Structure formats: structure tokens, C-alpha cells
């Protein structure tokens, strides 16, 4: 049953050191505010799951909160590589994280299997691809009907999934619109879920087939306007592409990164996200 609470409480009650956590969002509705709150609370040894780890995972890795990353594409989309991730993998700074690497098809199927309560996902994939050599969780099964050999990967079952959504109604039913990514599956696959929203409304006014998470599938809801910035919230504010481009140079140097994190994350609050998106909203 969804409970409304401040973001700090939602994170404190649902995320602990050593947890397996997914902060999902496929380029859209990325839960930046929740990731920043997790960093402020100093959680450690996380196993992070995400199809497309980008800036927030670069930040979590660079600050030293991560033990292992399960992923399929780690980049700053359209800009380049993740420099904090690279520093960890290539140079062991601040420490070397463990990687479990998949393809998008595998991760999407694995989330869906988690949501469906299945132990593993089956799909046609990884043919000839070398990832199976370095990831022992990529295996195969034989179709009992046709004999076709198919790829199999374990279901993803996070301890907690964090997502950002456009709105919730007063009962806590959550509406996601636009590029919905894998968020519904990631919430249903997780034991607990925390949703930040742009606003609370009386009526979601949604289409019958809209992507709605009923209130009883969500653990906690926090209202954080702008909480996806510099990602975007369809209908509220556009993607701040200039900030993604700027991240490349911020993350390029350890000291610059740490100074930026102190100013914009450690010494900041969830309420700051509203002002970061104010100038973008006219363009939404």
C-alpha cells in the first residue's frame, strides 16, 4: 500500500547497504533525485541493476557506493563513455566494481521474468556473441517442442526499485506516460518500490490502456518536482541535453567530480530539483 512521505524517509526505509537496487528509466524519467538521496545517506556495497546506467550510476560508482553492476549499456547517450565507471573498471578508483554484463534483450526479458514470478527468462539471443564467455549467467535451454536452443538468463528480482513518474493520485496510483521503458516490470519484479512524482492530482485522467501502477504495488511515493533532471518528464520538461554534454568534463577528473558532487548532491536537497528544471518547463 503506497505511503506518501518525504524522499529522505522513503530512501531510508527502503534502501540499505548491501541491497540489490534498480534505479530504472530508459533515457526518460530517470530517478536522479532518488539516486542523489541514496548518495547523501551514505549507503554502500550496492548491487546496482539497470539496462542503461548513465549519469546517476556514474555518480554512485564514483562516490564509492557500488560493489557490483548488472547492466547492458553503460554510456552517456549521444555524448560518450562513463568516465567514473571507466576509472573504476580500468584503474580501480575508488575501488574496482564487479560487472555482470548482458544485452538489452536479456535484461528486458529478465525484468519481465521477475515481474512474472518466473525463475528465468528465455529468448532468442546471444548467438555468436562473446558475452556468454565472460558471464556465467548467460546459459541456454532447449525448447521441448521444437528442439531449438534458446538463451536463458536468471530473472531480475531487486530488493528495491526506484522510478520517477509524472503523477500519482491521492490513493497512490501512479501514471507513467511517454517512453515507459522497463519501469513497470522493474517495480513489479522488486520486493519494494519507491516512486518520485512531479505532482499529486485528484484524477489521473488516464486512457484505459495507460501505464498505471496500482497503489498496492508501490511501497512509497515522494513528491519531487523536477526529480528526473537532467533526464526529462514527458509533458513537464524536456531532456536537458546540455547538462549531459557538460557531465563529460565534470566526470573526467576525480577532484572536479568530487567538488561537483559536494556542491550539487551532498550539500543539496530534493527541493533543489524544482529550480533546476524551471527554465526548461516552457519548452516541454
Amino acid at each position: 500500500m503506497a505511503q506518501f512521505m518525504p524522499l529522505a524517509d522513503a530512501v531510508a526505509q527502503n534502501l540499505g547497504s548491501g541491497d540489490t537496487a534498480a534505479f530504472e528509466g530508459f533515457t526518460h524519467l530517470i530517478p536522479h533525485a532518488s539516486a542523489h538521496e541514496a548518495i547523501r545517506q551514505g549507503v554502500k556495497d550496492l548491487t546496482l541493476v539497470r539496462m542503461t546506467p548513465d549519469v546517476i550510476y556514474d555518480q554512485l560508482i564514483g562516490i564509492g557506493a557500488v560493489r557490483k553492476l548488472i547492466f547492458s549499456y553503460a554510456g552517456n547517450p549521444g555524448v560518450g563513455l562513463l568516465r567514473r565507471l571507466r576509472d573504476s573498471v580500468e584503474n580501480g578508483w575508488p575501488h574496482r566494481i564487479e560487472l555482470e554484463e548482458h544485452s538489452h534483450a536479456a535484461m528486458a526479458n529478465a525484468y519481465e521474468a521477475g515481474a512474472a514470478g518466473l525463475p528465468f527468462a528465455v529468448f532468442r539471443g546471444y548467438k555468436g556473441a562473446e558475452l556468454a564467455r565472460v558471464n556465467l549467467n548467460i546459459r541456454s535451454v532447449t525448447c521441448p517442442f521444437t528442439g531449438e536452443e534458446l538463451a536463458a538468463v536468471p530473472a531480475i528480482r531487486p530488493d528495491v526499485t526506484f522510478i520517477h513518474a509524472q503523477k500519482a493520485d491521492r490513493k497512490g496510483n501512479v501514471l507513467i506516460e511517454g517512453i515507459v521503458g522497463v519501469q513497470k516490470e522493474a517495480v513489479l519484479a522488486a520486493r519494494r518500490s519507491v516512486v518520485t512524482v512531479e505532482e499529486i492530482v485528484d484524477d489521473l485522467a488516464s486512457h484505459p490502456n495507460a501505464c498505471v501502477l496500482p497503489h498496492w504495488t508501490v511501497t512509497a511515493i515522494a513528491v519531487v518536482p523536477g526529480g528526473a533532471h537532467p533526464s526529462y518528464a514527458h509533458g513537464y520538461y524536456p531532456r536537458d541535453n546540455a547538462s549531459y554534454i557538460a557531465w563529460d568534463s565534470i566526470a573526467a577528473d576525480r577532484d572536479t567530480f568530487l567538488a561537483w558532487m559536494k556542491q550539487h548532491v551532498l550539500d543539496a536537497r530534493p527541493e533543489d530539483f524544482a529550480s533546476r528544471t524551471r527554465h526548461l518547463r516552457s519548452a516541454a
Partner: protein
Amino acid sequence: MSEVDFTPDEMMTIAAARALSNDDVCFVGIGAPSAACNVARLTHAPDITLIYESGTIGTAPSVLPLSIGDGELSDTAVTTVSVPEMFRYWLQGGRVTIGFLGAAQIDRFGNINTTVIGDYDSPKTRLPGGGGAPEIASSCGEIFITLKQSKRAMVDRIDFVTSFGHGEGGNHRGRLGLDTKGPTLMVTDLAVWKADPESREFTVVSLHPGVSRDMVQATCGWPVRFATALTETPRPTGIELSTLRDLNARTKAAHSGGDKDGEAA
């Protein structure tokens, strides 16, 4: 010089765009493939279906997206589906005719590496990884590739097989049970290459205007094969060039906005 001047990059994008047809369903990679696919849509293939892996089907962006999930893609799409549905029903379901990919590292058989430079466990450079590409490479009807030539990118042996092309060549795909065509076309800033029907090795079939065989070989890490009937790539038309330049100008203007005070994230 010529009546219309153009850069090698422009020639690459336009030659790649020409390979697409109006009834294609194309799974679009970000970067150079995205530019080519949208130039095709804005010129000779107005009804082409462009799919981005973020779930947008039949999208028609007025500016090129920076990421594969910019809001513009969803705003202009026929429909936007979830990512699991995208990979299960649409890609795995065999509904995509062309997968259009870029490459960090590629070999003569169209095997692509976007995972690591160096050893996997202690890489010299950790690249983003495969994303959708491993299954795009196996599930699409055929694969087109576009990249700028360099000895760093076009190598004798790639460091990691992220996406399987033709493996060791010949019928390697068939032996793995893959019934799709795999890489058939590669467009670079210097030439158009096609996979040989027997060996499957990429072979230069046309040189872009002003490009010599030596220039192609000097920027490629394997001994280049040239078709016996080698031709010259037709130069860009005025409409192709103005379409591409307008698209790039709109894109640049759209992506340069945002925060000025460094509040990046």
C-alpha cells in the same frame, strides 16, 4: 571542383541513406545511423518505418535525438511500446527488415566490438557494451553498418565479439542456426562496401568522389578487396545535401540550450 561541394561525412550519411527504401522497417542505432535513416525519410523514403530501441515505432523526429529516448521520438511516433515489448514482439518477432548499426571496432566480416579495447577483465578502454546490438545483429532481416574509416576502428581482429556478423566468414551464421542475412552493407566516409556473396568478406563496390584505392587501404587494418566492377559513388544531390544540412542545423540549435551555470545533474 564540383558544382556542389560536400564533406566526406556528408557523403557517408547520404550514401547510407540511399540504401534504405520506402517500405523498410529500420531499427536505428544512435549517431551516424540515426542521421542516415532520417535523411532517407526526409528525401526518397517518406514512408519508411523508423524504430528506436526506447520503444518508439514509426517515429519522425524533426531534429536528431541526442539519446535513443529523446521526447521528440515519442512525440512523433505512431506508437510507443515498452522496452520488453520492443525486444520481444518487434525485434525477436522478426518484424524488422534492416538493423542500422555503428561500430567502435569492426573486422572484415562485419563482427562488431563495442565492449572493450584490450582484455575483458582488465581493459585498456571500457566501452559502453552491447545494448541492443547483439540481438539486432541476429534478429533483423539484414544489417547495414556505417562508420568513419580508421586503422583503429577497422582492424584485423576485434578485441571482443559484441555483435556477431559473419564470424569467420562463409556459412558461419548458418552453422549457428541464424537464418537472417547479417551484415550486407557498410558505408564509410570513403567508400561503399558489400559483403561478398560467398566469403562474406566486405568488399569495396564504389569509391566516393575523389577517393583513391590507396586512401581506403591506408585507413583500414586489413588487406582491402575491391570489386572488379568498381564504380564511383554518385555525388550528393542538392536536395540531399540541403536536407542533411538543415537537419544538422536544427539539431545543433535544439541541443545547445539548457543550463548555463553548470548544474549538470
